[in-house]
């Protein structure tokens, strides 16, 4: 056992595979600023935050509707699922951050849906700032689940398994806060299963999202979309990676972001199509609008394809509001500021189909019958 990462004597601590996590950290090294995956974001505040003790009790996820199991990591019934899955889905790949999360865990939950009948069960995951949290979401064969996840700082790693013929609909609401936030999300999608993610983010001093989806089963689909609206000195870094490892699956990644004031937005989106993943359809886009004079946008879409019979595309844009559009609207009587506001709303609205999303991004609903 590595003594740089002393184990606390909590039940949670005894249930996870610490050796494996330590090995991963030793292998990958601690994240470092200005290295490939941390080019524009300094990981130091995230690592430092891990050393702080939580200042409040964790809030357990709550059931909104339907039949769903929610087990804290320290209860007996969670033991088997933890040893079977935790740490094996968020293996880190390129980042040792999920392993650091595991070693510093202060709270954890298993959420499991086995319900394939009746209405779709739904769960709410609450913000737990100052905590280091791990959540395992299991959607069993043929089952479905809806998860609404809010965050306002803290360190949270979510591992999801969407079993055959299952469906997971995940909405992430990343609220404004002054604290540092790290969130990793790793998902395994099996045959005929679908995973849908909507993610909306507002400003924080520092927020880093790492999303990795492994497509492990044929005829499955992944739909990821979202937006951000950054003001003042906010910093948002999103790393999204979809790995197609089998034939005949589909994925779609689409993010729209607005960077205002002195904010910085970083997006790295990667589609990986393995040699065996023939007949994959995968598309990724990231569009950005810069409204702040000192705002910065760094976006990099990547495509790595080893199969020859696939339909894939990727693209990114960043620029200012289209002045032709602004003029058009002004000739219809919209004041300059109103025209710009409506254009930005519209730009973000393209990736929102949820009122919660509009709310998080500060978009005014339109009152029409």
């Amino acid at each position, binding site marked *: 056992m590595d003594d740089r990462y002393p184990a606390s004597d909590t039940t949670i601590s005894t249930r996870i595979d610490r050796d494996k996590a330590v090995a991963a950290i030793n292998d990958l090294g601690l994240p470092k600023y200005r290295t490939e995956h941390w080019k524009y974001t300094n990981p130091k505040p995230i690592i430092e935050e891990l050393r702080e003790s939580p200042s409040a009790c964790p809030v357990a996820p709550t059931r909104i509707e339907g039949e769903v199991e929610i087990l804290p990591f320290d209860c007996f019934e969670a033991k088997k699922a933890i040893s079977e899955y935790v740490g094996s889905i968020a293996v880190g790949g390129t980042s040792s951050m999920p392993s650091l999360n595991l070693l510093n865990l202060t709270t954890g939950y298993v959420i499991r849906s086995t319900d394939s009948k009746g209405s779709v069960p739904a769960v709410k995951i609450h913000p737990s700032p100052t905590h280091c949290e791990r959540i395992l979401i299991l959607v069993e064969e043929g089952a479905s689940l809806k998860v609404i996840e809010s965050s306002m700082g803290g360190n949270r790693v979510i591992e999801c398994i969407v079993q055959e013929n299952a469906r997971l609909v995940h909405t992430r609401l990343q609220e404004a806060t002054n604290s540092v936030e790290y969130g990793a999300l790793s998902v395994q999608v099996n045959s005929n299963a679908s995973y849908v993610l909507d993610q909306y983010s507002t400003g924080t001093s520092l927020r880093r999202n790492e999303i990795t989806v492994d497509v492990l089963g044929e005829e499955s689909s992944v739909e990821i979309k979202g937006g951000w609206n950054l003001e003042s000195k906010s910093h948002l870094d999103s790393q999204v990676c979809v790995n197609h490892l089998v034939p005949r699956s589909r994925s779609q990644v689409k993010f729209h972001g607005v960077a205002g004031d002195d904010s910085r937005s970083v997006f790295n989106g990667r589609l990986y199509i393995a040699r065996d993943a023939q007949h994959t359809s995968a598309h990724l886009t990231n569009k950005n609008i810069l409204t702040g004079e000192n705002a910065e946008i760094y976006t990099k879409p990547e495509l790595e394809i080893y199969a020859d019979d696939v339909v894939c595309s990727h693209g990114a844009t960043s620029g200012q509001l*289209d002045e032709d*559009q602004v*003029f*058009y609207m002004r*000739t*219809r*009587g919209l004041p300059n500021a109103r025209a710009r506001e*409506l254009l930005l709303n*519209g730009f973000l609205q393209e990736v929102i189909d949820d009122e919660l999303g509009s709310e998080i991004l500060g978009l005014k609903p*339109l009152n029409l019958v």
Partner: protein
Amino acid sequence: MSLLEVRNLVVSVDDREILKGVDLDVDSGEVHAIMGPNGSGKSTLANALAGREGYKIESGTIQLDSIDVTALEPEERSHRGLFLAFQYPVEIPGVTNIEFLKTAVESHRAAHGCNEISAVEFMRNLRGLTARLELNPDFLKRGVNESFSGGEKKRNEILQMLCLNPRLALLDETDSGLDIDALQVVARGINEFRNAANAIVLVTHYQRLLNHIAPDHVHVLVDGRVAKSGDASLALELEERGYGWLEGS
């Protein structure tokens, strides 16, 4: 006093002089047609009248209802009753037509100190107008001009015009891209709009629109100047003779 009075308007774009002294007087109740070869400055005139940035007014004045609007913002000109139907209407994905129209109407009402229109009343008006233009009501829910066909975009311009009910409508090639039936629908919309208190300036290349909407005056713009003005018969003459005889005049 004219509704629109343009005096010796000189406009440059990117330091290139495009309009070289244009005069135009449009009275209430009139329809004017502006014709002329490609690149002669018709759209430049329309854009300059609407207040587009980058269309620098070097000299001359634009008066609307006896008020000099030369230095006004595009939205202020709109509030004063000027409307430009674009030759190439702009697509605005993400902003629905209905949202756009409602915001436009509200902006006009606010500028005139009127209170908000009720959503019910607004929708009732709008449904009536879409029916008149034979537009599928689903258009209202789509992004402004987003993936509309050329003809659909032009009809949408007329829908906006009817919603805002301007004093002066500048229609820049609203007839281009319309099929025969659509041309009739649009022409009917324009004719129904036409009254003694407003005026219409049609920029067009074709007599076929003027068969439906009889102009009181026809002007030919050549190389940034009004080379000739006349009555409706001038358009017919142009159809026959082309522009060659006016060039260099």
